[in-house]
């Protein structure tokens, strides 16, 4: 009896143990892989490895755009009491209560359950939010794009949306390169969620940093000057492009009005502020285009700078229109004088000699009517009619810059071709992608070198003898061309007396290091002509560019008194022809006159530098705000003006050092 029971017990025990063993084998052997995976999935969590968007730098390495992790505050408007929440949040995050309340109400009406209250909150705000006894304040960590200089180069850089996708400028054009691909790592955690180990599941690919060709300092000066000029002349907008004519590197590209890319667009924002007037908004260039006409003439006709051009007394009748110069009485002018005085009739005469085909060919060669290829998403090709669509007076119009629209950038490209000896160099904006230098395009020859040199000489005459006197720089030769194109009123079907005032030039004119084109759109009156409004901006920007690029002077230092005396001699008051008709093309650029002599104002007296070292002289001069030109080395032995002599404003003191 007992044995039988024991046998049963043993049997049951055996079956039990066998069942356990079977279960163990099933778990440990048969389903091992599957269960191991399940266990791993429970213990491991995926963690994103951040791949920040590529930074953007200027040519000197100063950051222009950076992605930095930051914190943002979100709420769900569908689950909060709007009045109480707007009260609290406006107090904690220093927001306008009414505006926040309106946003929350709007979001609720649209059944939007995720509303960003404020981005880029400070640490103090975050701590304050954490102390609030409410559960609806959701603080999230996000990568945020910052533009440390605010509006600087805003049109070039563009901006990004909330998900860091580029929506304008370089940010959009090179979004693929700038955007990184986040990686993934699997983190093994203990029961308390502490990471024990991690393995890389997908490698992060940070966005490629870009180095632009622009110089932050020059860009700032360009923006400052164009903003001041637009405000001073009551213009609607303005733009500046500074470019290295030999490499095509764009050193500065400014547009005004501007905007701050750090801020999202608001409903009350001026749409014009987000338009890149330098590359996206074409305009009729007016007289600056005569450079193209004369270049074509030098290449395709037997005209020379001294060739005589009949200007018909300043009036030319064409089928259906009358063209006249404001300087009536221009009988015969040399070709170079046509450029200096900006004679429309003279330019037309030259254009007629060039002929339609050649003119069309050269305009296209200079890159007009086509995009420059700069990596900006909204670049305009401008407007230039195909030859078969030209009218009877199209050749005449194109000869002095009408019936064509161009961008400031295209003008800079064309001016560069003249400046660098006849090669069309495409503007470049990207210097480096990552650590790799961006390849430069191959330049194309569009002018003979001798033609370019002749044009440079003639353009220098515009500054020294003609309409561009306000672009003159001490110590540097400058070549340029003014333009004052009347703006066409499509409603009234006539040209108005608002202008696109422009200046296109380079310095030093014999070996140009920089090309600068300035355009002011919608200036009024004579003060809004290119020579009056744009040339001073050109001067300021070129002056800064030459200093930054450390370009040696190519002219002897001209004492201020000599310069002023010369300016006074060449001064001529503007001439008003008094001849106005709605459909008459009028370029009163000719009236641009060199700056009037300023009366010398008594200033401080020259200190005595004799016997001092160069360092001590410079230190004392800087401390007194004086400009010193040094020569030689050793101790100061002579100076001009002598010690105690009164100094005029801007006057420099020459100090000779000897050992």
């Amino acid at each position, binding site marked *: 009896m007992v044995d039988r029971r024991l046998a049963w017990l043993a049997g049951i025990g055996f079956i039990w143990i066998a069942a356990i063993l079977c279960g163990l084998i099933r778990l440990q052997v048969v389903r091992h892989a599957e269960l191991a995976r399940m266990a791993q999935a429970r213990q491991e969590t995926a963690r994103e490895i951040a791949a920040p968007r590529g930074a953007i730098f200027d040519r000197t390495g100063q950051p222009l755009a950076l992605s*930095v992790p930051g914190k943002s505050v979100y709420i769900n408007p569908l689950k909060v009491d709007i009045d109480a929440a707007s009260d609290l949040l406006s107090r904690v995050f220093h927001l306008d209560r009414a505006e926040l309340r309106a946003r929350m109400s709007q979001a609720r009406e649209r059944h939007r359950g995720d509303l960003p209250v404020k981005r880029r909150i400070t640490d103090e705000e975050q701590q304050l939010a954490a102390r609030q006894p409410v559960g609806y304040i959701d603080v999230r960590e996000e990568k945020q794009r910052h533009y440390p200089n605010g509006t600087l180069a805003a049109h070039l850089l563009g901006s990004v949306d909330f998900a860091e996708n580029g929506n304008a400028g370089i940010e959009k054009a090179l979004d693929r390169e700038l955007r990184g691909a986040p990686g993934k790592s699997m983190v093994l955690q203990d029961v308390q969620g502490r990471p024990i180990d991690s393995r890389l599941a997908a490698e992060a690919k940070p966005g490629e940093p870009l180095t632009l060709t622009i110089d932050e300092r020059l860009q700032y000066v360009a923006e400052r000057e164009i903003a001041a000029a637009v405000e001073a002349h009551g213009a609607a907008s303005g733009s500046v492009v500074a470019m290295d004519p030999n490499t095509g590197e764009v050193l500065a590209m400014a547009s005004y009005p501007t905007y701050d890319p750090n801020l999202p667009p608001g409903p009350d924002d001026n749409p014009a502020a987000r338009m890149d007037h330098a590359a996206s908004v074409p305009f009729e260039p007016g007289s600056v285009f005569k450079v193209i006409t004369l270049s074509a003439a030098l290449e395709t006709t037997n005209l020379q700078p001294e060739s005589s051009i009949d200007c018909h007394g300043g009036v030319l009748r064409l089928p259906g229109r009358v063209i006249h110069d404001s300087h009536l009485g221009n009988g015969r002018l040399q070709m170079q004088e046509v450029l200096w005085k900006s004679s429309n009739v003279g330019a037309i005469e030259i254009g007629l000699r060039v002929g339609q085909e050649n003119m069309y060919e050269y305009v296209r060669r200079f890159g007009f009517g086509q995009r420059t290829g700069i990596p900006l998403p909204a670049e305009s090709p401008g407007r230039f009619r195909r030859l078969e669509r030209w009218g009877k007076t199209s050749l005449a119009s194109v000869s002095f810059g009408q019936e064509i629209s161009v961008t400031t950038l295209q003008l800079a490209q064309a001016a560069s071709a003249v400046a660098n000896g006849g090669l069309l160099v495409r503007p470049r904006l990207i210097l480096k992608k990552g650590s790799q230098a961006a390849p430069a395009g191959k330049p194309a020859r569009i002018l003979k070198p001798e033609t370019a040199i002749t044009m440079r000489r003639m353009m220098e005459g515009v500054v020294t003898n003609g309409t561009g006197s306000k672009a003159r720089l001490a110590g540097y030769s400058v070549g340029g061309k003014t333009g004052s194109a009347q703006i066409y009123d499509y409603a009234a079907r006539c040209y108005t007396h608002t202008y696109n005032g422009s200046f296109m030039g380079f310095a030093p004119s014999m070996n140009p290091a920089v090309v600068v084109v300035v355009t002011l759109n919608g200036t009024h009156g004579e003060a809004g002509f290119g020579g009056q409004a744009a040339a001073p901006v050109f001067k300021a920007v070129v002056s800064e560019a030459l200093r930054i690029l450390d370009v040696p002077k190519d002219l002897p230092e001209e004492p201020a008194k000599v310069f002023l005396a010369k300016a006074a001699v060449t001064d001529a008051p503007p001439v008003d022809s008094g001849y106005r008709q709605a459909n008459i093309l009028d370029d009163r650029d000719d009236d641009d006159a060199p700056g009037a002599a300023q009366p010398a104002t008594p200033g401080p007296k020259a200190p005595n530098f004799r016997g001092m070292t160069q360092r001590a002289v410079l230190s004392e001069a800087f401390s007194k705000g004086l400009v010193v030109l040094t020569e030689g080395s050793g101790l100061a032995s002579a100076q001009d003006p002598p010690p105690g002599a009164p100094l005029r404003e801007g006057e420099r003191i020459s100090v000779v050092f000897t050992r």
Partner: protein
Amino acid sequence: MATLPTFFRKTDGGPGGPQVSAAPKPEVVRAKQDPFQLRPLPLEDVFFQSKAIDNTRLVRESDPRAGGRCWSAIGAACLALALCAAGLAPRMANRIEGYKLEGIKNEERRLVDQRRALQLQEAELLGPRQLEQIAKDRNLAPPSPGQVVNLEPRSEGAMAMAKQ
């Protein structure tokens, strides 16, 4: 040692010693008519007697090999423990180092983010607008071309200013 009687607490004597009960067995009073009464358990009416055993007179026979066996057992246990520890130690060390490594990785990420934030701050402070404002406050003006004389090699990107 607990015995079944003590376990079931069905002794007829206290735990202090043998108490043979002379009292008559209590009668089991049941309400036979109670339909909800549980039926009696098997052997419910069987009671055990607990008996204290005095084994103080027993003397353990000396076993000279017992000590050796004992030490062998202790040695074996220690060896097993050592083997076990040797097997587990790398895993433990791995885990501790894993905590440290992950902590360092987190610190690295934090420092990288902090560096970017500082870069941004530096860029804001070195922005040309900011510098111009500082220069204006200190009565400085940008130099004209040729005004700057570099007596020493200049640093790249530095903005030269001259006193007004």
